[in-house]
């Protein structure tokens, strides 16, 4: 309640000079970590009590131990997959953001291109990935393309909404000063789109990792997807799970990175302000 008062009734006190990059607080990781540990403990106890063999369900403690001992091979694999995912995400961003710019400006472009974008989005990439490998070989390019194809849609869809979600009065004000379309884009459309874009990237970063892994399954000689499919072929469930663990950590890391940037850049947005008021 005190917080609420101090942020709304500002008349009574001189304003401190907030540095904009100090304003977002990093997200608190302890509750999430605790939840993970509890789930892992239940898992460990359940597997031990039921005497389930490791080739069916491996023990969390064994998975963790294996992930640590296999780190010298898992880490380079993880870096390969990360590179593919980020490369795909970059391609997806360039294509989706420029398409969103055009489509939010011209309705005819939206009517022509959006159904196409939906059609590509609903095509199962697991089915397309083998084709891409046949066309493009075992190199990195099919991985980049699958990662991009899986991750572009949230960016496109949210960017379009974002570029249009502008305060109409702010728009009229800039127009009354004969601001150019580019100035309007730079000064109000892009910043207004940021909340939507951060939401999109929370989804798209994880999707790009999935895309890279799916493409690696189809044909690759390195990467986490390759490591996982190899462990599966050897019926080494602990090794498979260790690969999955590293993969999950990769996804979580990317998500957290987006979340941290979100709090830094959206200090002014309701989604961040509301958490400051009610805590």
């Amino acid at each position, binding site marked *: 309640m005190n917080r609420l008062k101090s942020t709304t*009734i500002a008349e009574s006190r001189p304003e401190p000079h907030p540095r904009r990059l100090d304003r977002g607080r990093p997200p608190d990781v302890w509750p999430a970590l605790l939840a993970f540990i509890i789930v892992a403990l239940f898992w460990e106890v359940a597997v031990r009590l039921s005497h389930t063999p490791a080739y069916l369900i491996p023990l969390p403690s064994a998975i963790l131990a294996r992930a640590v001992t296999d780190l010298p091979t898992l880490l380079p694999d993880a870096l390969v997959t990360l590179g593919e995912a980020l490369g795909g995400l970059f391609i997806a961003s360039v294509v989706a953001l420029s398409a969103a710019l055009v489509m939010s400006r011209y309705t005819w472009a939206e009517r022509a291109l959006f159904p196409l974008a939906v059609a590509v989005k609903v095509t199962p990439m697991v089915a397309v990935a083998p084709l891409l490998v046949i066309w493009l070989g075992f190199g990195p390019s099919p991985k980049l393309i699958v990662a991009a194809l899986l991750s572009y849609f949230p960016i496109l869809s949210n960017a379009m909404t974002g570029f249009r979600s502008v305060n109409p009065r702010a728009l009229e004000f800039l127009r009354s000063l004969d601001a150019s379309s580019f100035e309007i884009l730079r000064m109000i459309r892009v910043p207004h789109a940021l909340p939507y874009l951060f939401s999109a990237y929370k989804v798209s970063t994880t999707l790009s990792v999935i895309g890279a892994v799916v493409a690696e399954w189809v044909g690759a000689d390195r990467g986490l997807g390759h490591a996982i499919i190899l462990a599966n072929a050897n019926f080494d469930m602990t090794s498979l799970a260790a690969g999955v663990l590293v993969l999950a950590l990769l996804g979580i890391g990317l998500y957290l990175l987006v979340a941290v940037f979100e709090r830094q850049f959206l200090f002014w947005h309701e989604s961040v302000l509301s958490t400051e008021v009610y805590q």
Partner: protein
Amino acid sequence: MLIQPPSTPPFAATDLPGSATPRAIDVRHVSKSFHDANSVFEAVHDVNLQVDRGRFMSVIGLSGCGKSTLLRIVGGLIEPTEGSITIDGLPPKAAQKQKSIGFVFQDAALLPWLTVVENVEVSLQVNQRANRPRPRGTDELLDLVGLLRFRNAFPHQLSGGMQQRVALARALVHYPSILLMDEPFGALDELTRAFMRYELLRIATRTGKTVLLVTHSIAEAVVLSDEVVVLAGPPGHVREVVSIDLPRPRDESIERSPEFLAYASLLRGVLKLS
């Protein structure tokens, strides 16, 4: 901060050279119809308005009478169907290019990621070719609207009345020749609104700006204006133009004077008829 009385009003547009200075705002036979798939809605019908430089005109009328549409036509945000508008002798689009217009809306519409001073200077950031030399800086303007202490605050840290002051400063910082205000205090609570009325009176007097104010508050119109136009509609047409011959400088005591009450009841009567 104490400012010495300046020789010229601060934040006034410098006079254009030339012998015959045109009217600050000149609206002639302006009509506006909105076309729908199968219907036509006339929002404004044959409006004439003339505002001389440095004068304060209010347009009052009931909700939906077309007064906001009229203001947007004057500001060049809407094209009229018929008639012509000039601002300092220029059509509205040309006046926009020269940054001769300062707009204040009911919604302050500040950019929430910018500080107060950055929000005000948004007006200088766009269309920079048309920026005039500024005899006074942004901080002096912030002082004029009473916000210098909050120059680095963000909009979400300000009250509604303070946000509207920022919007006012943003509309003045580029030295426009006219100020167009669309129910600027309509979203404020009654007490703040009454206070802001006199703040605007003080700022308008200090800057000597030509102002066209759309409002539905009779008190606001009488206190601030040299002339009050009563708009009836739709379609919006001028029902009556009332000159407010109250002496200046005016202050809060004006609302208790018999002349004020006479103007208020006169306007109330005209509004009822419409």
